[in-house]
């Protein structure tokens, strides 16, 4: 049975292997044909931006989401402005959503996986 799984990224990159392992988990779920969505909140939004060092961070990995048929990618709108982030800099198309929408998004899932 296909499950709706929402992965919530709330931490900045550069936490050792944690961000990469989280991405692995997400991609495995997608590869096993689960209905995967991703939501970036707070400092997690930094993971949508490729830094100076391409080997660091997970932005390059998130670029692969469409290849895995992961199209439901969201970013909390309130996370953007305080961090000077704009959707134009993101490595993958992420739809800005309001807090109120986040609640509904979570309610629609079978499983929510926090990072």
């Amino acid at each position, binding site marked *: 049975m296909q*499950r709706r799984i929402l992965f919530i990224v709330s931490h900045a990159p550069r936490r050792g292997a*944690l961000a990469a392992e989280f991405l*692995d*988990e997400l991609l*495995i779920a997608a590869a*096993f044909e689960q209905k995967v969505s991703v939501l970036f909140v707070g400092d997690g939004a930094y993971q949508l931006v490729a830094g100076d060092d391409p080997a660091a961070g997970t932005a390059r990995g998130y670029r692969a989401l469409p290849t895995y048929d992961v199209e439901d990618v969201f970013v909390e709108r309130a996370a953007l402005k305080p961090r000077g982030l704009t959707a134009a800099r993101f490595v993958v198309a992420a739809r800005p959503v309001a807090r109120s929408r986040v609640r509904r998004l979570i309610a629609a899932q079978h*499983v929510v*996986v926090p990072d």
Partner: protein
Amino acid sequence: MNISIAVHGDAADSESPSLALRFARAAVAKGHRIHRVFFYHAGVGLANALVVQPQGETDVAAQWAAFAEEHDIELAVCVAAALRRGVLSNDDAERYERSGPNVRSPFRIVGLGQWVDAVVESDRVVTFTA
């Protein structure tokens, strides 16, 4: 209800394994079934047989092992996360030419696909982050 649990923190630095154990005990006491416990990220440290607890401190890994044996619950440890943190099965110790295996029974080293399987097979999946 069929429940799977993800443990993301190690006992040395996090409440994650002890909180998860309390949750699991409560769930079993209420008549639910624990389908699988999946140890990921630093949580794989629970499976490290070489860890020595100071006297008088709670050995959460031993408690998990005893609980799992009593209720026949699978303790699954992600292989990629375990290799990175030095928790090796027999096969891994041979393959990577290390001095020996150090995974504690009844923890079992598995692939990340087993986590997806747990998600598919369970009514609920509860994650205890670090």
